């Protein structure tokens, strides 16, 4: 699944390279991308 509006973690760190070296950053950020995606999809279910 690809979308301009859904940022994978790889997409995200491209624009936030300072996070590359922080091991826990993905777990602190990416779940919210997934949660908002799930929320938006639920609005059409």
């Amino acid at each position, binding site marked *: *699944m*690809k*979308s*301009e*509006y*859904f940022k994978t973690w790889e997409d995200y760190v491209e624009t936030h390279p300072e996070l590359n070296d922080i091991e826990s950053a993905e777990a602190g950020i990416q779940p919210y991308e997934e949660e*908002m*995606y*799930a*929320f*938006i*999809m*639920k*609005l*059409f*279910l």
Partner: protein
Amino acid sequence: MENMKQLQEERAQLFKDVYDGKIPKRVPMEISITWDAAIEYAGLDLKEAQYNPEMFPIFFDKVAKDFQTDKSPIAPTLRPPAFYNILGSVGIVMSNTGSMQHPEVHSLEVDEYDEFIEDPYKCMVETCLPRIYKALDASPGEAALALAKAFKAKNDYDAIAGKIAVETCEKYGYPMFPRGGFTEAPMDFIADFLRSFTGAVMDMRRNKEKLLGAIEAITPHMKKIGIAPTSSRYARTFIPLHMAPFMREKQFAEFWWPSFKELMDHLRDNDAGVRIFVEGDWMDKIDYLATLDNRVEMQFEFGDPKLAKEKVGKDHIISGFFPITMLQTNTKQECVDKARELIDTLAPGGGYIFNTDKSLYSLEGPIAENLQAVLEVVRTEAVY
């Protein structure tokens, strides 16, 4: 409490055996009582109770106590009104009586199909959402605030209702399976809020290639939301099936089935069990269902239980078929006779879960008493 834990385990085992293809000690039974029915049965005001979390435990407790099945008869609703209200929803609205309803709406025009096919998620966020959630049809700042409030309201509701559901299960010994995914057949998703039922039917004739393109484009999304972190054969993905009974077989085979089959294969490949609600009458298309694998749980609404048993009973799990209308219009004896008839037809060899043909939308009049009599017959007689 120890007894309740043991009861939870015994009840869970009934379902696990069916999911695993083993014959359980007894036919497991589950029913789904809607919030509308539960709130009114508990003597509460329907509109008030849906907004007031302090009332949730009252109606959860009332139906969990009075209708003892093998899974909790009530679950958190998919349609809590607060966040729909915050978003200015026109696709899910509270009626004058307090029921949450889904009027026919559409949010995607025919000339926007290409935009949708290019990037469905972006198109849904930018173009479709503001049309069916009017609070998002505002300045960027106002829309962002409305979405943030709604997201928070939904998460708060999920946390509160989830906690009450767990407490209810522990109190009455209902098993708790982890939550599976929730998705739709790709064409149903296009029809529900994007093109509408009417629009999708029209597009099958007038905009065939665009509709097929949209179905193909949305399929990866239906796969993604169909899998939860806890998905398994016990934590089943729920898929309500909508449009197929209203389609001729030629249309069904061309528009509906291929992407649904692709979705089902994906779920199978990712070890996600599936429960489908086979809405309407699928008997003319049951051979398609028979081609699925992954031991799908199929809750049938209408049709011929004998034919279903013959066609899908060997490889899949059958439930449903008990008409909730009987509980309202027929005698207690006729209701329990119907339950016995279904048990005789569907229980032999296993692969059967007793359930009604759809969720219970009311427990008024004779419904509650007739339902309790039916459940008692299943509990005492449907033993292997």
